[in-house]
């Protein structure tokens, strides 16, 4: 099975390269739960020399949306983080797993890559972010065009999830 799969991918890849001129968004095959074998099948994207969006550090970027400024206190509010963990479990774990790449990126270490405002804006209005924010747009492409779902969180709930992310 695996061999067939690889051959299919190679064909897809060669097809893709042969029409490299086109700016068409082509889906990569999904590698759910596997160690990313992405290196071996690296698709030539226009910005291929760039760091993938999931690895980029964009702490200065607050994203687009209603969250303009978040001051994080020095210590983590445990009760708040616990509420955030519960919300995360119900609303987010279908696509985001702790410590591994899944449908979307893992939130582990996200506080070192993204600003609190960016994270909350992404939770609160992913569609707007994908339209207006370069990093969000690149993430969508990197993750096979699987658009993040708007789970209709309130600002307070998004803030609680953020607090939970601080514990990861």
């Amino acid at each position, binding site marked *: 099975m695996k061999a067939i799969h690889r051959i299919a991918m190679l064909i897809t890849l060669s097809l893709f390269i042969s029409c490299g001129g086109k700016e068409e968004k082509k*889906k990569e095959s*999904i590698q*759910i*739960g596997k160690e990313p074998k992405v290196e071996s099948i690296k698709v030539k994207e226009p910005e291929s020399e760039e760091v993938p969006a999931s690895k980029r550090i964009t702490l200065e970027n607050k994203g687009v949306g209603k969250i303009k400024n978040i001051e994080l206190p020095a210590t983590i509010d445990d009760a708040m983080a616990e509420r955030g963990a519960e919300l995360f*479990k*119900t*609303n987010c*774990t*279908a*696509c985001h797993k702790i410590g591994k790449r*899944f*449908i979307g990126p893992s939130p582990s270490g996200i506080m070192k890559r993204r600003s609190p405002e960016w994270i909350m804006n992404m939770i609160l209005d992913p569609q707007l972010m994908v339209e207006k924010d370069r990093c969000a747009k690149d993430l969508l492409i990197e993750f*096979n*065009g*699987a*658009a993040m*779902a*708007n*789970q*209709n*969180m309130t600002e307070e709930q998004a803030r609680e999830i953020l607090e939970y992310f601080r514990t990861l």
Partner: protein
Amino acid sequence: MKKYKFHLLALFATFMLLTSCGNNNGSKQSNGALNASAAEKVYVAPGEQDEYYAFLSGGYSGNLTVYGLPSGRMFKEIPVFSQFPTSGYGYSEETKPMLETSHGFIPWDDLHHPDISQTNGELDGRWIFVNGNNTPRIARVSLTTFETEEIIEIPNSAGNHSSSFITENTEYVVAGTRFSVPVPQRDMPISEYKSNFKGALSFINVDPEHGHMDIKFQLLMPGFNYDLSHPGRGKSHGWFFFTTYNTEEASTLLEVNASQNDKDFIAAVNWKKIEEYVNNGGGTKMPAKYAHNIYDESTHTGTTTMKNEVLTVNPIDVPGAVYFLPTPKSPHGCDVDPTGQYIIGNGKLSADLTVHSFDKMLEAIEGEKFDGEAYGIPILKFEDVLAGTVKSGGLGPLHTEFDDKGNAYTTFFISSEVVKWKLGTWEVIDRKPTYYSVGHLMIPGGNSRKPFGKYVVAMNKITKDRYLPTGPEMEHSAQIYDISGEKMELIYDFPTHGEPHYAAGCPASLLAPKSKKLYRLDENKHPYAVTSPDKARVERKGKEVHIYMSTIRSHFTPDNIEGIKVGDKVYFHITNHEQDFDVPHGFSILGQNTSELLIMPGQTKTSVWEPKQVGVWPFYCTDFCSALHQEMQGYVRVSPADSNIELSWSLGD
């Protein structure tokens, strides 16, 4: 909201423009303006929204359809009495109980007369009530979710036609029988109909908070046919009026035999008086089996309760509660004007309309001016209660609705027209043809204290050449008339689904702002819901297998399942984890002997599959949900009945 305001402003501006043009042109301003552009009046530009909702009954489709006015665009079909494979209504485990009756599961009915709930005689937009005609039932549909929430069966009734009309504070929804039948039902010769059969008029009280229905009492009337009804309003609040035909009590060839009497009756029922009688312990309890089905929004599940008793009232036990108003020629429609003063009987074998006066009726009762009695019920003198006659010149009047300027609009089936006439003077103001053979008509709020007299929709029985032909069977046709001026103007034709018998309409601003967008996952109390994907699992209980599955763009959790065997009964309990407006997911599996499911955000629905063949069978999402919709799929491995493959499930490994 903004959009409506904008739309209203735009309409107003258009109207101003048109008016000013009219002025320039001289005297015949309204006519000139009305002729200017019918297209403009019904044109709702892309992205803009209609000014009114219209709920058209589906007749033999068993369902209710939602349209916009003035565009005539259909927005939704709400399944009520009929199974609806589009969403799984009546197929899913949660909704099957909605179609239970004392006769067992019934997949269909004939839905007739929608009526929107009222407060103080004005539309309040909480619920819409509809009747199932064939196996008598009343349904309540929520106007926040646009889903059927409750269905109650009506015992002792048959051909539930003079239904489902509500009193002006939604105290009662009323269901009258068209056929009289033996009460209680029993084995007896049909030829002994006369004086043995009864006509039950059921008063179903409506809980003001939840809308839950319960039969308060059934009035067991003489064995006539109770055709249509409407409540009194304003001064006549507390009364209900029913047209009757077949006062001859024929059981065969009614076409001839029920048309012998020159006059039949409008039955005037003082329900407040009977309510008081019943509250004081009056009435007789009678064994009766009927189903009461309630859908719970938090468990997303319907349940059936079988009831076994109903309270009946013999009209002659409550003096002063029921009177007969003689009305010529087998009256059909029974309509009450916005003030509650006039009761219009549309004698369908006549050319004229009979208008009774509520005040004169009270006087006649006071003065005991009776013209005999029928089965102990006093008959009032025709001349004493008559307010006037509309000499229409048309043929076959059926139904009347009202505007907010003191005018009435009546349909004429035989002469295919809508006639506008003035209340009080009875003069005919205008008449316009319909295409063809019009039945009901509807003005938003047109049978309430506060009509919105801008459009009238005529619902026709015959389509013929109005659209491109589609073989022998065609959708029925409706016509929209602008009634804002002195003369009516036909502005649009649109096809309707099923056979609309009546409709109800209201301003969009009453419903649109409160229309539900999704079900909250944290309010989901379905016993088989999975509220987080880590709870997704598969459990076996003997031959029953329960799959607790969740969905979100664009995968099912789990999506690979093994250990199912031929002979198992597999329940897919699927919870949609989306919390965004308009992102339903669908579900279907190859070879399943039922419909798909369409699961709204935050909702749980259950589908049963009894695999008969060994193999690896795919399932997928049937609603194009995202760019990766085609990837939203999975497999179930079905092994032979005696296999010992362990139950297992996974996603992504």
